[in-house]
Every structure is written in structure tokens, then in C-alpha cells.
């Protein structure tokens, strides 16, 4: 299956928010109420607003939404795989098995995941790349890219879009910053950006490494069976050794005279302490 992506060219965005309107319509994500205490403002990314326009330096507009990482932290975080990377590159969400633990919010390096705090049956809300509609064949591309009047944000195969991004940068070297955001960050994302202004302030933190978010944790988790067995074997072994030493000590104590027992006991207690503290 081809891996699909969205390329956003910041220089072309006029900030009209047609993508926001289209997204709301396509996903039926509900009205933006007055800002709740967990929102900075009603126009920020929220559970009802899966994509939004943010202001970048020099009057530029940057559309922000889920980056659809190739190896996403949220999908690794989810204990029940309610968030999953599909073969097409979208990070899809299944509310029917979601526990509502919000670990996905903690694990998102871009802080793009939102939660229905006002609901007693809350879901995780984020851009899902109109995955279901596209898969069912009802849509050819996500609602947002379709709605964009200036083709500032376009949908296509990731490889092709990366090539297009580099083509645009090479064609006008003075215009763009020579960087494709999302090509390598956190192991690559399916939502990539090119821009003539720095996007550090618009959702691309400077500290992002090129290592996928789940990598470190996966490395630890892979050692789990070995740890379990090693600790178990160690405990059985220590127990056996200590028990044997105690039996031998007891037998020795039986054999020698009663007046010597005190010394053996003292020696035994000492060895026990060493064992206990050294563990």
C-alpha cells in the first residue's frame, strides 16, 4: 500500500480557514464553544477543531493538525492500540476500545492530540486524515486539502510529495528555507511542511530528534521477558543457597556441644545480614 501524506506550503496559505470549515463538516466535530479552561483560545486546536490556522512570524499562516508520524508515540503509548498507524499512513482512532487514559496526549511530541474534557464519555480527538472516508472510497482526498483555494496544502503519496517539496525548494532557492519539516523529524511524519519562515514557533519544536519517539521504550520493553526470567531464576537460586547454608549450619550445631551453639548462631546472623544488605 502506498503511504499517503499532506504537504503544506506555508508561503501559499492565505489563512482563510476553509480547511477548518471543511474539516468540521467532514468529521462532524461540533461547534467551537467559548474557550474552556483547557484551551488557550477558541480558535486553537481543540476537540472540536482538529485543524486550525496559527500565526507564524512575518504574517505567515501555518495550518496545524496531527502530523501522522510514521512511527508515532501515541500509537506506541496506547495500551489497547485504539490509535494505530494504518497502511496508508494515517494514524486512526477507534473509540470503542479506548480507555481514556490520555497517555497518547503525554506521548505526542507535537502536542497535537486533544481530549473531550467536557464529556462524561470522553474520546481522543485529532485529525485522522479522513481515513475511513477515503478507504471506503467516498472521498478521494481529505476534506481540508480539497477545500484549500490556493493549493497551499495538498494530498498525495509521501514519496511524491517529498520530491515535490524538494523540487519547489530547488526551483526557488532564495524563497524557501532549505528544510522539509517532517522529512526526518521523529523518524519522519506524513504531514510535511515547507516554508520561507522558521516554523519553530509554529508546532515544530527545535529539540525534536530524528529518533522515533517509541524507540527508547521499545528497547526497554523488549527486555521484559528476559528480566522476568532472570529475576525469577535469581530468586530461586538465592533461596536454594540460603536454605542449604541454613540446613548445614543447623546440622553442624546439632553435632557440636551445646556450649558452642552461641558462636554458630552469631556467625549465622552475620552472614544473613551481609546477604540481606548486599542484595
Amino acid at each position, binding site marked *: 500500500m502506498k503511504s499517503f501524506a499532506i504537504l503544506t506550503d506555508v508561503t501559499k496559505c492565505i489563512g482563510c*480557514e476553509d480547511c477548518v470549515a471543511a474539516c468540521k463538516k467532514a468529521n462532524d466535530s461540533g461547534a467551537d464553544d467559548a474557550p474552556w479552561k483547557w484551551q488557550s483560545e477558541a480558535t486553537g486546536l481543540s476537540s472540536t477543531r482538529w485543524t486550525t490556522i496559527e500565526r507564524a512570524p512575518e504574517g505567515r499562516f501555518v495550518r496545524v493538525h496531527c502530523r501522522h508520524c510514521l512511527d508515532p508515540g501515541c500509537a506506541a503509548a496506547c495500551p489497547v492500540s485504539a490509535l494505530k498507524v494504518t497502511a496508508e499512513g494515517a494514524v486512526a482512532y477507534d473509540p470503542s476500545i*479506548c480507555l481514556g487514559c490520555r497517555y497518547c496526549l503525554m*506521548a505526542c511530541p507535537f502536542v497535537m492530540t486533544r481530549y473531550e474534557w467536557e464529556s462524561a464519555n470522553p474520546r481522543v480527538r485529532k485529525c485522522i486524515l479522513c481515513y475511513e472516508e477515503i478507504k471506503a472510497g467516498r472521498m478521494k482526498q481529505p476534506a481540508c486539502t480539497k477545500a484549500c483555494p490556493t493549493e497551499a496544502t495538498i494530498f498525495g503519496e509521501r514519496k511524491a510529495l517529498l520530491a515535490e517539496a524538494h523540487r519547489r525548494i530547488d526551483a526557488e532557492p532564495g524563497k524557501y528555507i532549505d528544510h522539509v519539516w517532517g522529512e526526518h523529524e521523529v523518524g519522519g511524519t506524513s504531514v510535511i511542511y515547507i516554508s520561507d519562515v522558521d516554523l519553530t514557533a509554529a508546532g515544530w519544536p527545535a529539540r525534536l530528534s530524528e529518533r522515533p519517539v517509541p524507540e527508547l521504550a521499545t528497547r526497554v520493553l523488549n527486555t521484559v521477558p528476559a*528480566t522476568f526470567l532472570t529475576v525469577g531464576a535469581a530468586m530461586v537460586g538465592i533461596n536454594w543457597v540460603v536454605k542449604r547454608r541454613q540446613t548445614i549450619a543447623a546440622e553442624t550445631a546439632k553435632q557440636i556441644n551445646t556450649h558452642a551453639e552461641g558462636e554458630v548462631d552469631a556467625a549465622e546472623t552475620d552472614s544473613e545480614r551481609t546477604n540481606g544488605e548486599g542484595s
Partner: protein
Amino acid sequence: MNTAVNNRLLVTKAALWFFVGVATVIAVVRFTLGLGVTTALTDFTPWGMWIGFDVLSGVALAAGGFVIAATVHIFRLERYHGIVRAAILTAFLGYLAVIIGLMVDLGRPWNLWSVFFNWNLHSPLFEVAMCVILYTAVLALEFAPVGLESFRWAQPAVRLLRKLTLPLVITGICLSTLHQSSLGTLFLLSEGRMHPLWYTPLLPPLFLISAIALGLGMVSLEGLVSSWLYKREPEWPQISGLTRAASIVLGLYVGLRIGDLIWRGQIGWALDGSWYATLFWIEMALSAIVPAVLFRLPERHGGRWAVRWGAFLTVAGFVLNRVNVGGISHIAITGEAYVPALTELFISIGIVAGLGLIFLFFVENLNVWEKRPERPDRFTRPAVDPISSQFIGSPWFGSGQRAALAWAVGAVLGLILVEAQVSQRGQPRANPVRSPRNVVVEVTPRLDGKGHEFDWIHQPATLASFTNTEVENPSIQKAVLIDSGGAGRFVLFAHAAHQKRLGGEASCGQCHHRNVPLDRGTSCVRCHRDMYRLTDTFDHARHVTAHRVDKDPCVVCHADRAAAKNRSGSKSCDSCHKPIAPLLTKVKVKGTYPIGVAPGYKQALHSLCIHCHREHELAEGFKEPVLSRCTTCHRDQFGNETEMRVQAGWPSPTEQPLDIQARLGSPTAIERASKSSAGPGTKVTPQ
């Protein structure tokens, strides 16, 4: 039997019941109204008190269970046998705290079944969940003989469980090792959110080692507190042994933590004197350094005093460590401060209080300790007369009633807290725009023929009188006063005029459902975007900021208070900005465009800006001119581009095919729009 009332126990139990009462009410509200109203959690701080304290600290505090079980059953140090039951009970209750805390914290706890059917082996939280479930089961089996031993029918089961002690203990140790460290693994995914002093790839081993130290400290503290409560002598020989072992583990922890910072080259963060560096050293001192020293003080130098404080400090310090890892160290990066809501805090306290009560119940009714404590708080006189064997009843105010009263007082406080929370924090932030007021205005054409002026006639007392106002004179219109800044500075909004201009009844959606569908109120700037546009020549917000020191900033420019707050009614720019070119200045424009007058903003934009921009944009190689399109500003007219151009006396794009098509070689969006038979308002989108 000691008949004197043990006030310590009485007050402690009443307090515990009180906190349980508070938490019960809040928990009910949390499940009916959701997390938003009962917590201070946000999208930026999705985990708070319940994870940081109840789950992370609960598991760590329960570490005493596996540490003591290992000491007694694996290392076979018989002298600790007396405290093993209490340690297992503490661990079991700690895990219950974790489970209850998780149930409250999970948004959809009823979906918990899916953990068993949808395994994500790459999720640290999956490991945590499995460990919690399995280890709680192991602890229950380890503790079960204590509960069952007094029943005759259960003796076979007790004998079987006793035989299984060693396998159970070993399984428990394995699970605990994984579980304590997996709580550290949880945060390996949050690298982007955490301060480097707390984020390290060594989080899993650090969590394990600190849990061992904390478990030793917690068992000691629990022995000290309960002996104080029941007025009995603490098990000093065992406690001093445990704390001396703890000091070694603490030393190892300090070494590993500091060594790791140096190894990764992050030690500078701890020495830069910042708030987080201070917090780091406070945490290190409280949790490890000071207790390690205190535990090593020889007894003749006030060793018991030192052990008491050491046990307390190490427990408090590691709770602080878990809270730091789980939340406070994130604030440094995300910049989103989080202070737990009172309701959140009381749920946490309530869970601990409830488990405290269960602990006391088990201790009093089962053989948890070697000697069951007396219950001086239960009876102040015997229930049955020892001579006549006649029932004389429990005292009028027995422990049950006391508990119920304390619970009820707590529940009342819970209700008050919830009410305060729901009415203040739970609601959306005060809407910056107050509800509009209906008024009646008289509309008169301006003398210069540009637009209209509004005169506020009166404000109808009720909505009914507003609707029934007889409108004989067509120039008398209904209008709406909209509060622009939440400061009582109203803007007169001619609702009827807007409605008429935009196409009657059918046009409602153009404002009320504009950019943000289903939005309740579209603010003026959504249409009058030029007002706040950063690219505009005039930055309204900047002027507001500059004049905020004035008593009435609006009037500085919108001189006539009663007039509509629009461009035509405001002072001209040059009345303040003297050096700029005044109105009616002749502007020479490059090219063939007319040298002429730009009498107002609208004319200036239409005649000069757009022309120039179009040239500029086409020259720059834009596929489609952006600023020069009518619909860039007249966004509601999307699809009527051609029509609008004709109305404005502008050349239709089809009349200048060379300009655009020669450059692009394909039809433009404008053309497609003009060719399409779609009606007004239909969005035409390039493919």
C-alpha cells in the same frame, strides 16, 4: 481491657471517614459530569494528581511488600517474619489505591475489558496494566491465608496457599521488578515534554531502585505510625535493620542518578541555580541524601529520632520525585502550569483515607500483627452485662454513628467543593463578548452619500416590546448593540441592514455559520477581516493596545460615541499621524493605472492596492493572483467573482485572457468559478 478512650484512634478514624465522605460525592460528580469540571487537567497537562500521586506513588509505596517478602522468604531472615503480613497488607492496599485512582482517572473505565483483548506489546502502559492486575492478584493470594485462617471450612485452601507461598513470592518479586521499572518506562515516551534533569534513559532502573529504598522506608514508617496510633512499642530491631539496608540502597540511587547526569553531560542543569535545579536538589536531599545519613546515625546519637525523620523524609521525598517526573518537570518544557483542583486533591486524599480505614479494619480483626491491638474506641462500656448476660446495648454514640456523622460532614463539604468547582472552573471561560442588546435606531444617509449614520433612539425594555415596535418610518430600524471588548464599550450593529445586504433570510448562515460551522456567534472580524489583518496597512489591535491607557480608547478614533464603529465614522489617520500623506493627496502609480484620488479605504483597496498586487503577484509567478481576487475579501461571494467584477466596473478575467492564461497555460480558479453554473455561496475548489 483498657476502658479509657483512645483519642488518637478516635480522631484519626473520624478524620478518615470525613475524607472518604468528601471523595464519595466528588467521585459521583466526576462520573456524571466528566473530568473537565472536576479536575484542573488540560490538553497540555493531561496527567495530574491522580497519576502522579495515586498511581506512581501508590505503586512505589507498595514496594515494601515485595522487599519484605524477599527478605523473609528468599533471604530467609526470620527475624523480619513478624512484619511480613503488615507489609503484604500495605502493598495490597497500595495496589488497591492504584486501581481506584486509575478508575477515577480513566476517561472510559468501562472499556477496561479491551486490555485483555487488544494487546499492544509496545506500550509501556500495557505492561503497567498487566503488572497491576497480576500483582494485585498475587498479593491477594499471599494475604488470603490471613483472612481465611479463622474459618474452619477454609482450612484446605489455607494449607494449599501456605504451600504455594514461595512460588507466589517469587512471582510477586518478578512482577514488582517489572512493574516498578515500567512506571519509569512510561515516561520514556515523553522526552519532548520533560526537563533533562528528570528525563533519562535510566528512568526504569532508577524507579526500581528508588522503589526498593522507598519500600523499606514505607514499611518502617507504617510500623512507627500504627504503633503510635495503637500506643504500642514499635518493632525497633526490625525497623533499624530495614532502615540501615535502605541507606545502602539510597546511596546507590544517589550515585546512579548523579553519575547518569554527568555521563550524559546534563549536570549543568543541576548547577545553573534555576528553580528546577533547586527543586532537583530539594528532591534529592529529601528523598535520598538526608535519610541515608539519618539512617546511619548511631543510636546513642538520637538514632530513633533520626530513624523516624529519615523514614518520613524518604517517603515524602520519593512522592515528590514521582510527582516531579509525572508532572512538574513537564511544566519546564510545555510552559503550562498545573495546580490540582481542590476536588482532585480531595479524591486523592479520600482514596488514601479509605484504604487507611481498611488497613485499620484488617489489623483489628485479623492476625496481621503478632498481637491483635485492643479496640478501646469501640466500647466505652460492655455491650453485654457480664453477670446477668443481658444485652444492654452499645453506647448511644458508637463507632458506627461516629463514622456516619464524619462521613456526612465530609459529604457536605464535598458538595460545596463540587458546587464551587462546577460554577466557576467547570464552565467555559467568561465569553469575551457579552450577549448583544436589541435597540432601535434611526438610519439616515450620510451627507457625502457614503454609507449611513445610525442614531440610537431607544432600547426596548423587553424582547417583546422590541419585536412589537411599530416601524412606520422605513428609516427606523432594529439594531443590535454588541459588546466589543467585554468592557461595556458597545458597537452598534445594524442587523437588519446586514441581513438585507447579504440576501435576506437565507443569508443567516453567512454570519452565524461562517468560518466555523455551528459556531454560535461569528465575531465581526470574521467578515471585516481587514480590521485585524496583520498584512493590512492598519493594525487595529495595535492601536487598541497603544491607547489602552486612555479612559475610553474607542473614542480616540471613533470620535462619535453614538455612531457606528466603522472606518467611515472614525477620524482619519492623518489627524494623529501628521507626517503621512493626507487624504486627497494625488498618488502617482507606476504603469498605466490612473493617477487619481484615493478618497477612502475601500476605494484605495479597490483601485490601487489590488491592481498593483495583481501585477506583482503574476510577476512573482503565482499560479493564481491571490490578493487581487474579489473573493479574497468578499469571501461570502465565492462563486460570484465575475458578477462582482462587472458590478464594480472591473474588467472580467475573461476579457484579459492573455495576462493569465499565457502565464499559466490552464484555466484559473476564477474562470472555473465563472463558468460553473453553481449558485452564489457554493464553494468552488480547485482540484
